[in-house]
Structures are given as structure tokens and as C-alpha cells.
């Protein structure tokens, strides 16, 4: 296939050529970045919490009659006993927060009591001896809390635990290359002994600002005697939905003086996850639909302009056929023409994609676009162009040689 005659023809159709190239370039720039954003969001929302999520549900309970600290202590014990008696419940514990709950206590943890001189931020979860089996956390070193280690604190008491369980990521930061079990760390002005390390437990937050320490969590052996309290309940396999229906009634039957919100008082962990990542998922869906529509519009534009060119050049095509060009020659002429425009478009589009990414990096603190996305976009758009041009090109190849002799 000779390229020079094609280029000569394109010179006569500068405006149309430039428009198709420009459209391909802009589409490439947006689609690459959209794909990149989709990938980032999906990576973000598939980050594991370390929990056995499929069997868990959480209940937010507020006490209605302003009980004292002492009251809550027995109310809490009663509630946990009530929950364990609900058919289908495997285990339960009370806590202030849980992964993805998007609120809770954050501390600095380090090697000295100095509040400002800490090694890492850490999310604080209050837990008892049932927390690990309920959540399905994997203990990689040390041991679980014992029931005699569980203390009680009020909402505004000083938090100074004797023992801690931390995540392996936090252990690595505090004691790189060593075992953390048995070592001391400071979360208050008194040292605490690390008795166990769990493989993974995500923090309550999904913000990018807190992504630096999203696997740095600390479990503290306390029942926090405040309202509201969260109960985390583990259902036996296959019984999650039944348990979710039963727990509210069971708790109200045991004690009416409470508020469990009818809307979101009882949530399965799948709902917690969906809520935490709703904006990420929404953004990924939006980006994907925009990309698909853009590709469709670009394809339609190519079909429209090429159809027009074929209509305009029927006579020339007829002359070429009469002079011995085969149908295949005509077909490949239009395919090559489109490929040339497409290559011009993607070259410009690649530059635009990187430029757009730089601008997004500056505006939204986004990561640098991996070259693979541009490459994928280039291949997609060139293939799309070839597919779009196929129908008009086939029509062109069907132009009979006799067309050369017709005057109109």
C-alpha cells in the first residue's frame, strides 16, 4: 500500500482530517486518565480489612436513660449475654469502633512517653477476649487478651493499658526486623506491653489523608462505658441475614431503654463497606460510563465523516477500479487512511493524556499515569477507528468501475 497518494488526498481534506485526529486525541487523553482513576479507585476499595467480613454485623446502641458508668458495665454484660443467646450468633463483643466505621480514636504510638515524639499514628480499638474470634483476626505472634485483663473506662478517663495487641504493619514500624511480642510501647505516659500481633486490621478511615497508616491499628483491653456502644456480632455460617433480623428485637425485649436507629442501627459488614466506599464506587462507575460513551461518539464521528468522503469520491473510486484496482485495494486504502489519521491522533493524544495527568496531579494530588494506560488507550482507539471505518470502506469497495463513466 502506497502511503504518499493517501497523504496527498488528506491534504485536500485538511479540516476533516484534523477534526478526526483531534477527536481521537481528546478521547485518548480523557479515556486514559479515566481508566487510571477507575483502577486507583478499585484498588482503594478492594483493600482488605483483615476481618472475616461475610459473617459480621454491627449494632449501634445508645442508652436512653443516661445510665452511670456503673450501670453501663452491667448493661453491657447483659447485652452481650443476650446477643450470644440469639439463635445463629457465634460470638459478640463491644467496642468503640471497627474498620471502615469512619470515626474513632487516633493516637500516636512510640518508644517514649513524649506525646509529640511518636513512631506512627494508630487507630485505637477497645476490645475484649472475644474480639479476635468474633472478627476472625489472624494472630501471627503472641496471644489473645485474657478475660482477667479486660478493664473498664469511662468516656473521658485516661487511657493507659497494661497490654496491647497490634497489627503486623505497626509492629514492623515500631520494631523493624524484630519480634514485637513482649516489648514495650507508649500510647500514654505509662508503658504498655505488646502481647500479641495480628496479621492485619484496617483503621476506621478510608480518606487518602490517612492512607499512610491504614494498617496501623492497636487493640486495647477495655470495655468503654459510654453511649453509644457498638456491638460486633459474628453469625454462624449462612445465618447472617436471619441474625440481622433477630438481634434488634432480642435487645429491645431484654431492655427497652435504648435507641437502635431503625435506618442504620443494625448493619451487615457488607453495608458498612458499601457505605465507606460509596464515593469511590460511584466515581469508578461514572468514569467507566463516560469512557464508553466517548468511545461510541468518536466511532460515530469517524463513521459519519468517512461515509461522507466515500460518497464524495465515488467517481475517483470508479476510475481507480476501472484502471485495475481490486476491491481489496480500495478497502485497504480507506483502512490505511484511517490508520494514518489515527496514528496522528494518538501521538497528539498521548501528549495530551500526560499533560492532563500532570494537571490532575497538581489539582487533586493524583498519582503519575502509568505508561501502560496510554498504551492500552492507543491500541483501543486505533482498533476502534479501524472498526468504525470498516462499514464505509466496504461500501466504497463495492463501487462498480462503471461509476467512472457516469457524469454525476
Amino acid at each position, binding site marked *: 500500500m502506497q502511503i504518499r497518494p493517501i497523504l496527498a488526498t488528506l491534504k485536500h481534506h485538511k*479540516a*476533516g482530517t484534523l*477534526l*478526526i485526529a*483531534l*477527536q481521537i486525541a*481528546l*478521547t485518548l*487523553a*480523557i479515556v486514559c486518565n*479515566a481508566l487510571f*482513576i477507575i483502577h486507583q479507585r478499585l484498588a482503594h476499595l478492594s483493600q482488605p480489612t483483615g476481618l472475616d467480613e461475610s459473617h459480621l454485623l454491627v449494632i449501634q446502641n*445508645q442508652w*436512653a*436513660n*443516661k445510665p452511670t458508668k456503673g450501670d453501663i458495665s452491667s448493661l453491657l454484660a447483659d447485652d452481650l449475654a443476650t446477643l450470644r443467646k440469639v439463635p445463629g450468633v457465634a460470638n459478640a463483643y463491644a467496642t468503640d469502633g471497627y474498620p471502615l466505621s469512619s470515626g474513632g480514636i487516633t493516637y500516636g504510638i512510640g518508644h517514649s512517653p513524649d*506525646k*509529640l515524639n511518636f513512631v506512627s499514628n494508630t487507630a485505637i480499638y477497645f476490645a475484649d477476649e472475644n474480639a479476635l474470634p468474633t472478627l476472625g483476626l489472624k494472630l501471627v505472634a503472641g496471644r489473645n487478651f485474657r478475660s482477667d485483663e479486660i478493664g473498664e473506662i469511662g*468516656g*473521658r*478517663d*485516661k487511657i493507659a493499658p497494661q497490654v496491647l495487641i497490634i497489627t503486623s504493619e505497626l509492629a514492623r514500624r515500631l520494631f523493624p526486623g524484630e519480634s514485637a511480642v513482649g516489648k514495650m510501647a507508649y500510647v500514654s*505516659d505509662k508503658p504498655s506491653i505488646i502481647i500479641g500481633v495480628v496479621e492485619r486490621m484496617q483503621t476506621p478511615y478510608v480518606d487518602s489523608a490517612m492512607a499512610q497508616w491504614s494498617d496501623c491499628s492497636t487493640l486495647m483491653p477495655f470495655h468503654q462505658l459510654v453511649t453509644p456502644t457498638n456491638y460486633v456480632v459474628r453469625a454462624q455460617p449462612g445465618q447472617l441475614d436471619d441474625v440481622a433480623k433477630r438481634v434488634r428485637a432480642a435487645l429491645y425485649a431484654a431492655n427497652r431503654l435504648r*435507641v437502635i*436507629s431503625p435506618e442504620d442501627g443494625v448493619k451487615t459488614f457488607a453495608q458498612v463497606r458499601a*457505605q465507606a466506599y*460509596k*464515593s469511590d464506587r*460511584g*466515581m469508578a462507575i*461514572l*468514569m467507566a460510563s*463516560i469512557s464508553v*460513551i*466517548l468511545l461510541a*461518539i*468518536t466511532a*460515530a*464521528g469517524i463513521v*459519519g*465523516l468517512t*461515509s*461522507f*468522503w466515500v*460518497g*464524495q469520491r465515488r467517481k475517483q473510486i470508479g476510475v481507480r477500479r476501472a484502471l485495475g484496482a481490486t476491491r481489496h485495494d480500495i478497502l485497504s486504502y480507506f483502512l490505511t487512511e484511517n490508520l494514518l489519521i489515527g496514528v496522528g491522533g494518538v501521538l497528539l493524544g498521548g501528549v495530551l493524556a500526560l499533560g492532563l495527568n500532570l494537571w*490532575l496531579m497538581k*489539582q*487533586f494530588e493524583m498519582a503519575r499515569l502509568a505508561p501502560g494506560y496510554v498504551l492500552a488507550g492507543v491500541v483501543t482507539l486505533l482498533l476502534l477507528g479501524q472498526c468504525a471505518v470498516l462499514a464505509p470502506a466496504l461500501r466504497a469497495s463495492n463501487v462498480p468501475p462503471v461509476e467512472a463513466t457516469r457524469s*454525476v
Partner: protein
Amino acid sequence: MLGYYLDLAVRSLRRNKILTALMIVTLALGIGASITTLTVLKLLSGDPLPEKSANLFYARVDPNPLEGYVPGQTKPDSIMSYTDAMNLMHAHRAVRQAAMALIDAKIDTQHPNDHPYFADGVMTTADFFALFNAPFQYGSGWTADDDESRATLVVIADFLNNKMFGGANSVGKTIRIDDRDFRIVGVLKHWAPQPRFYATDLGGHDYGDGDAVFMPLKTARSLDKGPQDTECYASVSDLQHLESAPCEWLGMWVQLDDSTAVANYRMFLDGYAKQQVALGRFKRSETSLLDLMSWLSDQQVVPNDAKLQTYLAFGFLLICVVNTVGLLLAKCLRRSREIGVRRALGATRRDIFTQFMVEAAIVGVAGGVLGLVLAVLGLWGVRHQPAQYASLAHLDVEMFLVTFAVALVASLIAGLLPAWRACVVAPAPQLKAA
């Protein structure tokens, strides 16, 4: 003449229905997407108190220790300790001033069988309502004396009044909040500034419903109501007495009516910080006094995703316009002969240009109408999202007009190149070829 052009344009558009439909749909998709995202962005970045925002200022001082302090660069914390807030309040250096924090209020319903429920509330000082122009339906706010005497009185929102008292004048009646009887002194008219600017850093949501109850700060604290957000700048052993703890939990707003007042208050604030440094309470003398809109942009209240979506939609619109240019160009070049004939029969270049621009404008108006339908659908979709601002997403008159302006401008820009190409067609060769 315009009637003739319209007739010609409609005929031409009818001749190639698929191409016309493609142009209109493309343009409509671009316009629908841009108007939807722009409406949401406008909603999110709007001025919550247009009549007063220029006179409202948010004051900040910095009681943090010296570690990590870079003079001139480190910004003060976004909330204030009780000591500082009260010192600034009692100095009375602004026309009006109020300190505030957010609370959860448990409200008992009148019916014995209903469960009590929790509503959003604000604990604040007497000037709050006048400071923010909060409109009263019945009654009024409380006085500075009520603040000091820890009076158990409350101002409630219209929606709470509707729910509890069926919308009747409930001033003087009591409402049970946190197991304590409060006397209602005022009922607000609907008041829900978007964003809820006074609460951006107090631990609440930024958009959505307004607060249900407003009670005096000291009253709420004497009932042990805790603020939704507390930040401590030194080790604390007692969080029960937040008033004396080294913790920040209050937002401080002042009203300053002209630039002299602003300059004076700024000097006063700087002087206060220097005085506290001299007393040894502060280590940093940094202060900040931002007006409402600057404070909102400083806080980056508008979610980045909303901005990103708007940029994306306008990129999308740009591609749609380029696409329409291409299709219009193809259409008009196909009619070179028709143009040749018209030129030969006496039509000027200007006539041809106008004719093709009219055709483009028709595509634009049709695209605008369809785009408007898509935008309404898009906003309906936004309203069914679980976002805080979802229920507020509606097309207003302004955006309705903007839609058509965008559609017309986009289509006329798209029509320029094809119309120019059409009007420079030389008539003679076209006639010869025919």
C-alpha cells in the same frame, strides 16, 4: 429571510435523519453531563449566607507547643479552646460574636410508646442568631444573661416544631431533651445554610439538613453535653472538665462591618496572641481571621470528586462539540452544488453563512432541549445517591438558562467552520461539474 433559512435548514436536516439525530444526541449528552455536574458543583460551592458572608469572619489562634512550628507557615488549628474563646467573647471587640460546638440531643417524643431519637444540635452563645441572620418564625433567641445563668431554654428548628407541635406556636412550651425539660424561647423558620459553614470543623456534616436544637453553651455543658470534636494540644488526664483542659473544641465567629473594623480586629487578635505568649500560655503568636468564603475554600469543603466530575464533563462536552463540527462539515460540503446554485442565483456569502449558522443553531436548540431532559434525569440520579447533599440537587432557573446558553454557544462554535467553508465555495466549478 430568517423564515426562509429556517425552512431550508429544516429541509436539510430532514434529508439526512441519522446524521441529524447523531449530532443532536451527541450535543445533548455533552450538555446533559456538563449541566448536571455544574449544578452539583454550584450547589456545593455556593455562598451559604449571600447577604452577610462578607461581614462574617472566623477567628483562630494557636495554643500548640513550639515543636513543628515554622513561623509564617504553620496555620493555626481550626478550632479554639474554651479559655481563648471566652477571652475573645468577653472582650466584645466585634459587633457580634459567638462561640459554638455541635452536640447530639436526645429528644423524647410526647407519645409514651415511641422511642426517643437523636437529633443534631448546636451549643452556642446568645449572639448566634443575629450573627448569622437566622430567621425566627416564633419568639426569639436568648440573652447573654441566659448564657451566664445556664438557663434551660432552647431554640428549635421548624422541622422539629412541625414534628413535635404540628407547626403551632410552641414558644413557652417545654420539650424534653436529654431527660431535662427545656423551655422553648424561639422557633426558627427554615434555616439550613449550604454548606453548614459554621460546623465545617466541629465534627458534623457539611451539607444537608440544618440543626434541630440550639441551646446555650454553658447550659449544655452543665448537662455534660460533649462537643462532637475535641483536639488536645497537651497531655490530658481529665476530659470531663473541657473548660479548663488544654483542648480545642469551639468555633469562633465574629461580625465585622467594614475594612477598618476588620483591620482593628486583626490587630486585637494579634495583640491577644502576643499577650498570651508573654503570659506563657502560648508558644506561637500565629493568628488567622478569614472571611466566610475564604474560610470555606481554606477548608476545601467542596469535595474534590465533584470538581473532577465537572472538569471531566466539560472535557466530554468539548469532544462532543468537535464531533458535531466534523458532522456538520461533512453535511455542508456535500451540498457544495446547492450552494453553487444559490450563489449563482444571487445569494451573497453572508446569506450562505447565515443559512448554515441557522442550521447549526437549530441543532443546538434541539440538543439543548434534549440535554435539559438528560440533565433533569442526571440530577434525579444524583438525588438517589447516598451523598449528604443529594436531596438538594435541583435545576434552578439560572441553570435552566445556562443550559440553553451553553447549547447555543456550543452549536454556533461548532457551526462556524462548516458555515465559513460553505460561504467560500466558488460557484462556477460547482455549476460546471453539475
